[in-house]
């Protein structure tokens, strides 16, 4: 009895005196000296290896930012390419510390798979690509059409839901490999191709024999908030990932860019000072040091820079910011306050 009391008191004391506990996952990452990041097997703009074998993309930069924040080096990441069937198991079993793999945040996935989504890193939606020859201008004209789709995403379900709501029957032709689904569509096997709008832009620009022969239909039939997920049961690690993404978004709002991180340390703006760790120490609450956010932005830039480099104006995809603009610039990107 007395021993239990002593332990309880010791624990309570520890809770008050010690800094926030770092958590199992972070301890593991630190002792390994590497962040294990689950990415896709190749989605241009989000996570794909370039000709030199370097991983690039928006999801990749999220992991690099986190590695910079917790390990001090954005290159200390082990990339684990995962198929859509493998991804959740890889996270659940501890093979990866974070799943940053254009994965849609939905109730079932958040509640039933033993994982937590942390924050939205890209707001996407599902659309259609058709050949101009079909003279289709709206998804509602796709009655009895055959629609090529890649399996293993929420895409098939959205497709069924949308056309059931419209009272229209369509025939999905489901491929497990992206390349096969694209090839089948451009050979004329299907009248339409469906996937997330971000990917449609890329497919039309880079894969079509002649991009002008194809058109993306105006309908966006689903909400696809994409974001990284972590395993359940480690709230400290969950907080680090969540707040690193928020920091990247906040940095854009505050005007902190990759090139200006050091120069802005002398800024009189208290929000900027807090962000860069000059004033208050926000890192302590996360079990990190005071410069965590500054290092993340210095490594990969703020959200706007990450967006432009990978999927936006400076990339082959040329996607508009759209929903992914800051809340005060017509989008819905809204960082929780870093204070």
């Amino acid at each position: 009895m007395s021993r239990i009391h002593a332990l309880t008191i010791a624990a309570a004391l520890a809770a008050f005196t010690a800094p926030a506990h770092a958590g199992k996952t972070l301890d593991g990452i630190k002792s390994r000296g590497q962040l294990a990041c689950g990415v896709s097997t190749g989605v241009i703009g989000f996570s794909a290896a370039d000709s030199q074998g370097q991983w690039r993309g928006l999801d990749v930069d999220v992991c690099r930012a986190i590695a910079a924040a917790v390990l001090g080096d954005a290159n200390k990441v082990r990339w684990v390419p995962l198929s859509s069937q493998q991804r959740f198991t890889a996270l659940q079993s501890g093979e990866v510390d974070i799943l940053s793999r254009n994965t849609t945040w939905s109730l079932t996935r958040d509640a039933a798979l033993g994982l937590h989504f942390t924050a939205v890193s890209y707001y996407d939606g599902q659309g259609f690509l058709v050949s101009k020859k079909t003279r289709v201008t709206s998804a509602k004209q796709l009655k009895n059409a055959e629609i090529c789709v890649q399996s293993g995403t929420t895409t098939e379900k959205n497709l069924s839901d949308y056309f059931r709501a419209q009272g229209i029957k369509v025939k999905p032709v489901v491929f497990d490999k992206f390349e096969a689904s694209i090839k089948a569509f451009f050979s004329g096997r299907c009248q339409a191709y469906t996937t997330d709008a971000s990917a449609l832009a890329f497919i039309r620009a880079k894969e079509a024999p002649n991009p002008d022969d194809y058109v993306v239909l105006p309908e966006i039939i689903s909400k696809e908030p994409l974001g990284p997920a972590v395993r359940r049961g480690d709230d400290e690690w969950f907080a680090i990932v969540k707040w690193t993404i928020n920091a990247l978004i906040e940095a854009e709002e505050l005007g902190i860019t990759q090139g200006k991180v050091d120069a802005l340390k002398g800024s009189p703006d208290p929000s900027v000072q807090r962000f860069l760790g000059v004033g208050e120490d926000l890192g302590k609450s996360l079990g990190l040091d005071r410069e965590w956010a500054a290092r993340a932005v210095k490594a990969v830039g703020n959200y706007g820079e990450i967006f432009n480099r990978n999927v936006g104006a400076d990339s082959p995809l040329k996607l508009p910011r759209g929903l992914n603009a800051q809340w005060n610039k017509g989008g819905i990107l809204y960082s929780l306050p870093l204070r």
Partner: protein
Amino acid sequence: MRAASRVAQALILAAVVGLFVLLAVTTAGHLEQRGIRSGFDFLLEPAGFSLGESMLPVDAGDSTLLAFVAGLLNTLRAALPGAALALGIGILAGFGRLADNPLVRGLASAYVNAFRNIPLLLQLLAWYFILTDLLPAADAAMHLAPGVFLSKSGLSVPWWGETGFEIPEPGGFGIDGGARLTPEYLTMLIGLALYSAAYIAETLRAAVLALPPGQRLAALALGMSPRRAFIDVLLPQAWRAALPPVTSQLLNLFKNASLAVAIGYPDLVSVAGTSLNQTGRAIECLVIVIAVYLLLSLGAAAISHRLEQRNLKGRPA
């Protein structure tokens, strides 16, 4: 001695079963501990996705179980006619390999060697893209015969549909009505049959060559023509020897049908993959596929074993 060996067998069996039970219980425990939903209850919930082609009228609102059944039927729909076709082509090619005519022999051996030495997945993809590239677009379908159309959407033939007996005709996106054999289905059928037939041909050839040469010589000495000697004397004996390996080839064909998802054919594996992603029940979906393949393969093996036994016993006098 026999009793001792039985006891040993029983112990080994118990150990193996125990191991699997332990594995299942531990896995279930860990899943629960990590907050991962498990169990097979998702089978009764609406699937939420539909199949591009199916013998059952399955819709997104129907249960996942029904989608699995429709997927299995699609597998069988490709594998069973594929097996019959493989047997027919295999017998022809096997005899071709033994023919006296050098041209026939050369063609048969080229076919067998090419198809046995290229991975089946590559063959399926090649057939599929050749088929979809060569065929005319759905809105410019070839009119082969009254009511029979061939295009990238497949081969449409008159058949019973939702409105009774339907004659296919050009519609909104190509051909409407009747029954349609899609390019995915045709590819599975052709690809599986040609691949397995090459192995069956080799098996048959080996079985004939393994017969003692005296059999053929004796038949010829009795005044039989070479053809009669082959059909009446050599073939029945060779068939007996070839039956077990041929059955095993047909079973392989059934298992190879699981490559269907690569070319967009909605088979059992494809349905399981989609369900896995909708529900996150990875282990459950894989267990279902494994169990179905195992049960069907064991069943087919048992039938083949009975056939062999009957063959050995029931020799005509």
